[in-house]
Structure formats: C-alpha cells, structure tokens
C-alpha cells in the first residue's frame, strides 16, 4: 500500500501527451458525442422554453405556495452551486497541498465548476419574479434612489456567487493559456490559428513568463481557497441567519462546504469515468486518481454524516421544543422518505468506500457517485422544504408538490450543464497538458543527472 505508482501510466513522453490530448479535439468526434449533444441541448431548450413561460406567467407555475415559498428553485440552486465546488477545490486547495495527482483532473473539474455555477445562477435570477428589475440586486443608482440591502444574506449570495464565477473563470483561463498555445502551434487551419493565437495571448513558454505565471497560479489558488469556503458558507447563511428551526444552526457553514465538496467530487467522478472510457484516458486518469477521489468522497461524506448527527443531538440537547420538533418531523414526518433517501445515499452508501476493492472498482464507484448526487439533491430538498412546510402556525402547514415546471426546469438544467460540458470537451483540452507534463519523471531536470542522460535523454518525435 506504499503507493509509489506513477501519476501517469504507460511510456508517455511529452509529445505523446500533447498528441493524445490534442487529438481528441482534432479528430472527428465520436458518434456518442453527437447523440449526447442532441439530447443535452434539447433538454436545455426545454429549460429555456420554460423560463420563457415563467417570465410570461410568473412564479405561480411552480409548486410553491404558503408556507413553502422556497421550492425547487432554491433546492436546485444550492445543488448546482455545491457541485461547482469540486473544481476549485481540486485546482486550488489540492494545489496548495501539493497533491500532484490533481493535474489529470483539474481542467475538466474546473470547467464543470463554471457550468455548474452557471446552471445554479439561473435559478435565483428567475425566482425573483420580476426579472426585468433584476438590476436592483446590484449597487447601481436607480429610479428609487435606494441601494441593495447589504444586511441581507440573499444579497451576499449575489456577490459571493458572482465573484466565484468570475474568479473560477480567470483561474480556468489562466490554466488554459499554455495549452491554448499548444493548440495554436498545432493548428492547421487559418481560423484555428487566429482563434487560438488570440486566446493564448502570444504565449512563448519562456521562463521569464513562467515565473510570473506560476506566481499568478499560486495567488489565484490562495485567493480561491477562502473563496470556495466562503461561497457555500454564504449560501448556508441564507438559511442559518434566520430563526427557522432546522435552519438556524451554527454548524451550517462548514457543513454546507463539506456537502458541496462531497457532491462536487461525486459529479467529477461520474463525468471522469465516462470521459476516460470514451476517450481512452485510462493511463492519464488512473485508478490512483479515482481511488484518491473516492477517499475524499468518503471523508466529506463522513463530515456530512457527523453534521447530521450533531444537528440531531443538539436539537435534542437544546431542550427547545421547536428545534426538537423540526428534527423529529424530518425523520418521521411526511417527508421521512426524503430524509431517509438522504441519509442512505450520503452517509450509509459511501461507507462502502472503506473497502479498497470497492474504491477501485469502476462500476461500484460509478453507481455510488450517482447515489451521492441523488442524496445531495435530497439533502437540500429536506432542508428547504421540511422546515418550511411545518412552520410556527400549524393551521398553515401544507405539503409541497412540485409541478411539471419544477421538474422540467431541474432536468433542463442538466441539459444546459451537459451541453456546455460537451462543447468544452469537443473544443478545448480537457486535461491540462502542461501540468501533466510537469509531473512526468522526465520533467525533473535532475532526472538526467546520471545514467539517464544518454538512455532516455531526448524526447524523440
């Protein structure tokens, strides 16, 4: 178990990595790609169609009513923002921790982050009702001479998620620049040469550039790390700053962050397994990578489980009947089914990852990752809906039922996410070539100090 297996398997050289990853976008796309794109984009169209109808008709088309004023829109928002956390975690936190195995997965995890945050951003934007005055959310002088309420957690969301998207985009783009230069140098057509030439900013790979580049990368990682923690913490304050039993609890910020990483890794896992299969990337995204990700899923799953337990214990310990009711109602009330789906998917099923065999079995991890995705959606559903549906006035209690528009928009958001993801996979390098080359043993200048000098010296093309 002394894991000294290399990060990249097979006899890869610098140029074989370039070839392998670039050729994915240079050759014709596999048939499955067109099929998937057709499917995903039609679902995205459903989303946009329904959003159009929502603008016309109003938020009444959703299942929200009194007392459940926050329905699936908020559930989906939190779900997607959560998914978006793995990318930055992999690119920033694992970078700071010098976990070199991240290099094979960071690029598409970052892309996934961007698209997930985009899918997330749609929901709060459309749930405001009067979308045409959405600019009220920004501190712009307006006809009422009023300013946004900076004491509201909902406004913090606007800034936190907006910042997160912007910084993730900068991070992603910065990481792409050297690879875009590779694409520029390999481009055959004039248009490609132009486009990649402009996008790569004229990158020359000189050490005087690398010096500042590496520093930028480090700084962005340093800035993104607290940012990624703050984003889901801010999302958690939407709930936790209130006085609603089941929402107001001090563990919410770290608990939301752990849950976000948990769900994000599950989504990366789902996508990575598919991508490595379709594009034959088994030697770059190795069993070691998958094993490590499974360990992180297990760890964050345990933190989430710890938080569920803490919440329950403290609800009892508080001696506060409202708190106690909220939790008993979650586990045994009308939404018990959702609660137990959540517990089984998020806490029980990931326990299988204690076994090394399961951590290294592709079908098993694929299925578990799907379960985690499901479980984490239900977690947000349980939080949002159970607490609201049983508020302080029993006469107002009600049961929430989604409409076709709730369901359609949720599924449609997957369509949007996958459409963007498929386009990314088609046109941009989905694995960071420069970073993977950097972790090859040949990349260490001292590799050549001794006998290697003559034997493996040059990289022959």
């Amino acid at each position, binding site marked *: 178990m002394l894991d000294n297996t290399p990060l990249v398997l097979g006899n890869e050289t*610098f140029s074989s990595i*370039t070839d392998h990853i670039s050729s994915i976008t240079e050759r014709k796309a596999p048939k499955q790609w067109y099929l998937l794109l057709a499917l995903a984009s039609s679902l995205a169209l459903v989303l946009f169609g329904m959003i159009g109808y929502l603008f016309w008709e109003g938020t009444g088309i959703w299942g929200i009513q009194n007392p459940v004023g926050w329905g699936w829109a908020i559930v989906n928002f939190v779900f997607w923002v959560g998914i978006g956390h793995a990318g930055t975690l992999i690119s920033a936190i694992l970078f700071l921790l010098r976990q070199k195995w991240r290099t094979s997965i960071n690029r598409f995890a970052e892309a996934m982050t961007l698209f997930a945050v985009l899918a997330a951003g749609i929901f709060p934007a459309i749930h405001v009702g009067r979308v045409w005055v959405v600019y009220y959310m920004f*501190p712009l002088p307006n006809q009422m*001479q009023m*300013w*946004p309420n*900076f*004491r509201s*957690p909902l*406004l913090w969301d606007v*800034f936190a998620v907006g*910042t997160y998207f912007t*910084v993730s985009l*900068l991070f992603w*783009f*910065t990481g792409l620049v*050297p690879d875009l*230069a*590779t694409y520029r*140098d*390999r481009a055959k057509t004039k248009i490609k040469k132009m486009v990649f*030439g*402009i996008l790569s*900013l*004229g990158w*020359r*790979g*000189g*050490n*005087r*550039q*690398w*010096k*500042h*580049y*590496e*520093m*930028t990368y480090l700084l*962005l990682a340093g*800035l*993104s790390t*607290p*940012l990624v923690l*703050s984003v889901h913490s*801010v999302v958690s304050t939407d709930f936790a700053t209130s006085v609603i039993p089941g929402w107001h609890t001090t563990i919410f910020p770290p608990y939301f962050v752990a849950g976000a990483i948990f769900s994000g890794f599950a989504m990366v896992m789902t996508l990575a397994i598919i991508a490595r299969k379709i594009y034959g990337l088994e030697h770059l995204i190795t069993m070691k990578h998958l094993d490590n990700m499974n360990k992180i899923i297990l760890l964050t799953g345990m933190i989430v489980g710890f938080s569920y337990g803490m919440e329950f214990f403290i609800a009892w310990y508080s001696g506060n009947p409202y708190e106690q009711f909220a939790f008993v109602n979650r586990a045994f009330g009308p939404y018990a089914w959702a609660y137990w789906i959540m517990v089984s998917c998020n806490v029980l099923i990931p326990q299988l990852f204690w076994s090394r065999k399961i951590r290294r079995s592709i079908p098993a991890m694929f299925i578990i990752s799907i379960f985690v995705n499901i479980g984490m959606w239900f977690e947000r559903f349980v939080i949002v809906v159970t607490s609201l549906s049983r508020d302080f006035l029993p006469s107002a209690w009600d049961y929430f039922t989604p409409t076709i528009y709730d369901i359609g928009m949720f599924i449609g958001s997957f369509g949007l996410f996958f459409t963007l993801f498929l386009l990314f996979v088609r046109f941009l390098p989905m694995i960071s*070539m*420069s970073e993977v*080359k*950097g972790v090859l043993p*040949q990349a*260490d*200048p001292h*590799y*050549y*100090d001794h006998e290697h*000098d003559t034997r493996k*010296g*040059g*990289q022959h*093309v």
Partner: protein
Amino acid sequence: MSKQKVVGLLAEFPHPGALLKAAEKMREAGFQDYDCHSPFPIHGMDQAMGEKRSPLGWMVGILAFIGFTAGMTLEWWTSAVDYPLVISGKPFFSYPAYGPVAFAFMVIFGAFTAVLGMSVLNKLPRFHHPVFYSDRFAKASDDGFFVSVENTDPQFDTEKTRVFLEEIGGQHVELLLETDEEQALENE
C-alpha cells in the same frame, strides 16, 4: 528578395536538464535579454537564470486590501449615510453583516490584479515576437526546450553568440530573421 535583419538567435536543447545547465551558463556569460522556453515550468530554473521572485504577491496583497476597504466603504456609505434604513433592528453600520460582500470585493480585486498583473509583467498579449520566426519553435509548446537571445542584448553578436550557444550544447541553432517588409509594416 527583400533584406533580412537578424533579431535574435534560437537554440534547441534535448531535455529539461540540459536547458537548466544552459541557463546557468547563459547567466554566467552575462547575457541579459535571453529566455529559456519549455512546455512546462522547470523546477530550479529561476535560480539557474538568477531570476528574482515575482513581485505579484505584494501587488495582489495591496490591491486585495484596497478591495476590502472599497467594499466596506460602499456598504457603509449606501446603508449608513446615503439612505439609512432600519432593517431587522440591526445597526446602520452592521460590520459583521458587511463582511461577506467586502470579502467578495477583496477576492475579486486580488484575482484581477493577479491575472492582469501577470499579463502586464509578461507583456502579454503580444502576438509578434522574434521567436515566432522560427518554425521549430512550435515545439516549445509540445516537447521542445529552447534558449532564445534577442539582439537587444548588449553582448549580442550574431556570430559569437551562435558559437557560444553551440558550445553550451545547443542544437539546431538558427538565426531569427525579420524581413524588411515586416519591419516596414511595424514602422507604419
């Protein structure tokens, strides 16, 4: 045929180890306007070239602080000065509640400084550069390791420098030539 002008020299090295050694020799020989190109950053290259640490850290630190202050000031001015409103019994200047937005300002200022700062320090975007005159240079983003010397270097001498590059192990040493037309285009 139009006249050509030598704007630099380019030499290829077989692997990162050789490039690192070449960089040391370039520095010892006192070259200034040279650079070592590689498809990925090479560990120890900064020491070999005698490069100082990038000043970006300080720039980002200062701008991030300014960003935080700017965010706080905006929140204070809009909520406590320009249009004070009592909301949920909180003070007009509720600094704990203003933390998240001020933090977002801080990060966004810092991130833009990091990226724009890099592009300024690296003089990017720059689409026109002597090294691009070489066809071999396309390898620099694949598996090639190059040393380039520009003619702006005080020591630059087409012949001597070429010999020197070959002495330190450079292969395929070539002249980077700029044609008159291009120069003319530039001067326009």
